């Protein structure tokens, strides 16, 4: 990339190179975009990433399988539970472990609350980027409730590590389901409030309709995924197409739009909020009874009570903590529908207690490649709308 401020293109027109980010409020983290502009129009856009690269994939290779779970929270920090879920499912697939029904339903419930949490942050910040300040306050009001639910089950608001290999960390506390039920009954009304502020708002419509268009062919070729792909008219949702952790038991619609623009992505995500709360309702209504951890003493840590009273449990506990558990050699790729699209974990095991290779396929990393195509030919102000519409999380891109 040319570093000088002014370059001459082939046609002889003068274009300007403008640096946007990494410390720009609308880039949602440390994303740096190098824009080549002709007046106000974007001619070319190149993303520069790596400012948050922490080498998590390398760190995983030095940890026991169970020690990787807290690392996964920190990748896509807006949906920590989805990261936990993807990693746990991948390791469970390697181990051939069966998860009890209650743990599966709790995973669905928490995963959908995570999706709502993530979409609320997206909606609030996206609207604020486009000048609608109030929506942000409304969204964070509901997000606060969800973070309290996370705190109730795991003790943490964001870096939950609630899903463990073989089930859940703990039983949900007493009164948890009642509180979630109250929230789920109220939430569709809250979505109506957001929509009242935005969906018919003429300023919002002017900033989003027909902006940053991405055709279905381009979206597939450039690897876009999740709501970005569905808003280009491609009907794909891994929860429905390749169900995991019991999603086959739930009824939900997959919102698809062929608008291909920023507004279509907004509509898809807002519809997903409504579908997700429907799944939460179904999970609450049908929550099975039973244990929340698999019966696999060599993999799952024993209860504290048993550990303090039974010799055998104490030995298992000691062995898991000090030497981990070995996982049969092999490889798996587990894909999960995260709020941003296909989140995939590719894990290679060599039969020891530490993963030989862990690779995270981040949905934001995939969507970022489509950003250049979306923005070319539009105005600088539309770049802000486009970034918001693909919902980037830089922790997920740089890992």
């Amino acid at each position, binding site marked *: 990339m040319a570093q000088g401020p002014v370059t001459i293109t082939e046609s002889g027109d003068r274009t300007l190179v403008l640096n946007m980010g990494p410390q720009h409020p609308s880039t949602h983290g440390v994303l740096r975009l190098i824009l080549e502009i002709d007046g106000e129009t974007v001619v070319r856009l190149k993303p520069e990433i*790596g400012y948050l690269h922490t080498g998590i994939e*390398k760190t995983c290779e030095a940890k026991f399988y169970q020690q990787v779970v807290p690392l996964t929270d920190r990748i896509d920090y807006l949906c920590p539970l989805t990261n936990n879920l993807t990693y746990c499912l991948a390791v469970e697939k390697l181990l051939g472990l069966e998860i009890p029904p209650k743990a599966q339903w709790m995973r669905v419930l928490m995963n959908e609350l995570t999706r709502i949490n993530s979409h609320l942050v997206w909606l609030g910040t996206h609207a604020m980027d486009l000048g609608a300040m109030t929506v942000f306050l409304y969204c964070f009001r509901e997000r606060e409730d969800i973070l309290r639910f996370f705190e109730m089950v795991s003790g943490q608001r964001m870096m939950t590590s609630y899903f463990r290999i073989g089930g859940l960390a703990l039983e949900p506390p007493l009164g948890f389901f009642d509180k979630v039920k109250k929230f789920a009954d109220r939430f569709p009304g809250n979505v109506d409030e957001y929509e009242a502020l935005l969906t018919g708002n003429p300023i919002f419509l002017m900033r989003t309709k027909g902006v940053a268009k991405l055709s279905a062919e381009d979206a597939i*070729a450039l690897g876009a995924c999740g709501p970005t792909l569905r808003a280009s008219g491609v009907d794909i949702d891994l929860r429905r197409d390749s169900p995991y952790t019991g999603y086959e038991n739930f009824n939900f619609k997959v919102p698809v739009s062929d608008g291909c623009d920023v507004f279509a992505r907004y509509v898809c995500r807002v519809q997903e909020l409504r579908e997700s709360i429907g799944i939460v309702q179904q999970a609450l209504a049908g929550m099975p009874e039973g244990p929340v951890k698999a019966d696999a003493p060599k993999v799952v840590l024993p209860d504290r009570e048993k550990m303090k009273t039974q010799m055998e449990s104490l030995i298992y506990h000691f062995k898991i903590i000090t030497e981990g558990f070995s996982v049969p050699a092999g490889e798996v790729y587990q894909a999960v529908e995260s709020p941003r699209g296909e989140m995939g974990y590719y894990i290679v095991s060599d039969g020891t207690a530490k993963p030989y290779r862990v690779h995270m396929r981040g949905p934001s990393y995939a969507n970022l490649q489509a950003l250049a195509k979306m923005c070319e030919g539009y105005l600088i102000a539309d770049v802000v709308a486009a970034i918001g519409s693909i919902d980037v999380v830089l922790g997920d891109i740089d890992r």
Partner: protein
Amino acid sequence: MHSFASAVQGAKFDRDELTIWVAKESIREVCAILRDDTGCPFNYLADLTCVDWYPSEPRFEVVYHLLSIPKKERVRLKARLDGSSAAIESVTSVWPSANHYEREVFDLFGVRFTGHPNLKRIMMPDDWEGHPLRKDYPVEGYR
């Protein structure tokens, strides 16, 4: 289809996942055939990464995860590369989305992709020495 058969070095079906080993010379050709297949077009590159089997040879395995959006099927392709000449043809001409993935593998493993339009480091600074995800690169970095 003839070239496809001669390019396949092996296959396995393990834990409901299909893996096919492909000769490194024909990776781009095989990818193009799979993408354009009429019965089950693997039109989406879900992931591209690499595994380092140091010190054994062939050292690197480049791993491609393909998804067929119409048929909802997945397949994993693998190509083995020697450590001394770790280079393979780029698949950016088949799926433009391979661009960033191949840059990442180049950056972190030092595998070169011939025919890539912009093969530069993506995560690490341009003047970084070494390739961090190689197994002979210490976890704590060079001190």
